[in-house]
């Protein structure tokens, strides 16, 4: 979402700060539904959340610093090109494979995670009952931190990183992953919104409300489309969209801008 706001001429910092508020709105109902189904590992969620809040604090300060030296737009663009590029390619490959296999009439093979990784040898072990895990608290804290950092800088929820990381690195059961990550996202993005509002003054409440309304309406269409298309096809389309956005940002970075100069008000000064 953030790149689309930036394409429409909204300053990158405002796009990021406001997007955080919109993610709160779009994740809260899902989080509550998961909570009711008892799919949230509160202990794991709290560790992730602690990491997320730390990451968010660092991220918002980083945004402040980058804005002061005038490199924020550049940094956001590079971050998006990197992440969208990686995710788009991975999704494209995965969904292409799934579509091919579905055509050949085979059920998509689910990779069984192995039993021991380096992650499981770290100290500070904790027992996470809901996830049926006994692992170090460091990896979930670190994952939460990365998600909080990216959320603050890029205006994303971070589910796209947290979910695979929890499944493949922590071996959290899949049904718990979604609920727990939503739990963390709601609180971290809420915290990030408040922090952006106080530190950077880059939350536009009017824009946020418009985005929320748009999100609700868009979700209805999304559900309708989701019922017509197969999951693999949907992922394939999404991957294409992700790559398009990625290319659009990359294009902006490498082509010569129409005006080499830009002006902005001094951040932090009066």
């Amino acid at each position: 979402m953030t790149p689309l706001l930036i394409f429409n001429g909204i300053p990158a910092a405002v796009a990021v700060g406001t997007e955080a508020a919109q993610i709160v709105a779009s994740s809260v109902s899902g989080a509550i539904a998961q909570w009711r189904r008892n799919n949230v590992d509160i202990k794991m969620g709290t560790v992730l959340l602690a990491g997320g809040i730390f990451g968010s604090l660092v991220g918002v300060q980083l945004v402040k610093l980058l804005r002061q030296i005038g490199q924020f737009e550049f940094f956001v663009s590079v971050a998006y090109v990197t992440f969208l590029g990686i995710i788009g390619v991975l999704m494209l490959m995965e969904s292409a494979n799934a579509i091919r296999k579905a055509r050949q009439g085979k059920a998509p093979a689910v990779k069984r995670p192995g039993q021991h990784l380096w992650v499981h040898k770290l100290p500070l072990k904790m027992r996470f009952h809901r996830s049926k895990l006994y692992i170090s608290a460091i990896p979930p804290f670190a994952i939460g931190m990365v998600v909080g950092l990216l959320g603050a800088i890029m205006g994303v929820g971070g589910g796209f990183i947290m979910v695979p990381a929890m499944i493949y690195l922590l071996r959290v059961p899949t049904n718990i992953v979604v609920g727990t990550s939503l739990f963390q996202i709601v609180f971290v993005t809420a915290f990030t919104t408040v922090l952006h509002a106080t530190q950077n003054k880059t939350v536009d409440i009017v824009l946020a409300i418009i985005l929320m309304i748009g999100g609700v309406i868009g979700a209805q269409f999304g559900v309708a489309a989701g019922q017509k298309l197969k999951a693999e096809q949907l992922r394939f389309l999404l991957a294409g969209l992700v790559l398009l956005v990625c290319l659009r940002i990359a294009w902006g970075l490498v082509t010569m801008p129409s005006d080499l100069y830009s002006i902005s008000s001094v951040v932090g000064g009066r």
Partner: protein
Amino acid sequence: MRFSWRVARGLLGAVILLAACAMLVGIEIAEAQRRQQPTPPARPPEAGRQPERPAAPAPQAQPPQPVPAEAAPRETVQADVSSRSVSVTSSFTGTQIVVFGAVDHSRQPSAESGLYDIVIVLEGTPTRLVARRKSNVAGIWINTHSITFESVPSYYAILSTRPLDEVTNPLVLRENDIGFEHVRMTPVQGWETGVTTAELQEFAEAVVRLKQKEGLYVQEEYGVVFIGRSLFRASVDLPANVPVGPLDVRVYLFRDGQILSTYTARVRLEREGIELLLHNFAFNQPLLYGLFTVAIAVSAGLIASAVFKRGNS
């Protein structure tokens, strides 16, 4: 109809949250009003007529009293603006301001004789501004150079009866900060490091160019029209993105390239209504503002899911 009570509970929760939001806003409004109440007497009732000297070093403003000269009374200029205060609401889409005035003791026989020239400058509050230049680093365009200007007028409009170079000579223009080339832009101390005068010039030109592109720096070479022997008028379109703050209006009367008289007025641009409320809220109480935004987000999410579930069942 099995949705009823779960949905009702969800909706109730959302309504309670919204009510809490409304209360927060209510408190905010009350506080804002309380804060504003003691201030009004401090404001001069009539801002335009005899303006206290603007913060900017304005030209030597001569009082508009007719000076009894030996031969004939000297010409002086008086002017005013159509609206001394413009309210910028959330639906502000720009406005037009008319600057009008008269030349006292005008000696020109008709409006077309062109004995006098009028130049009107509207200048917004000086603000700090950073100009940056991109260059190509390893195939990627990235901001590499920057200069911070201490004070650049946020808005600048010049209207004149003729092109400025026909009205007078560059020296006079520079002395009075008339024209885009003479907009006062002071770089912050320490800019010297690695920046040549030529580069500084380029940056200053870029600032003017970008401001022109945003519609904030405007020039109309035939924007001022004499209506009679002494009466003149000009209209300026303030764009929707005009920075909020006072606009200083300077009116110069020229004859044969010499300034005969000047007059200053002021237009106040002020936020009003929801625009003012939100601006104050966001900048004076950022913590509450952030919490409020989150509360709205949460209630929006809850309402959406309640409505959505109902539609599905």
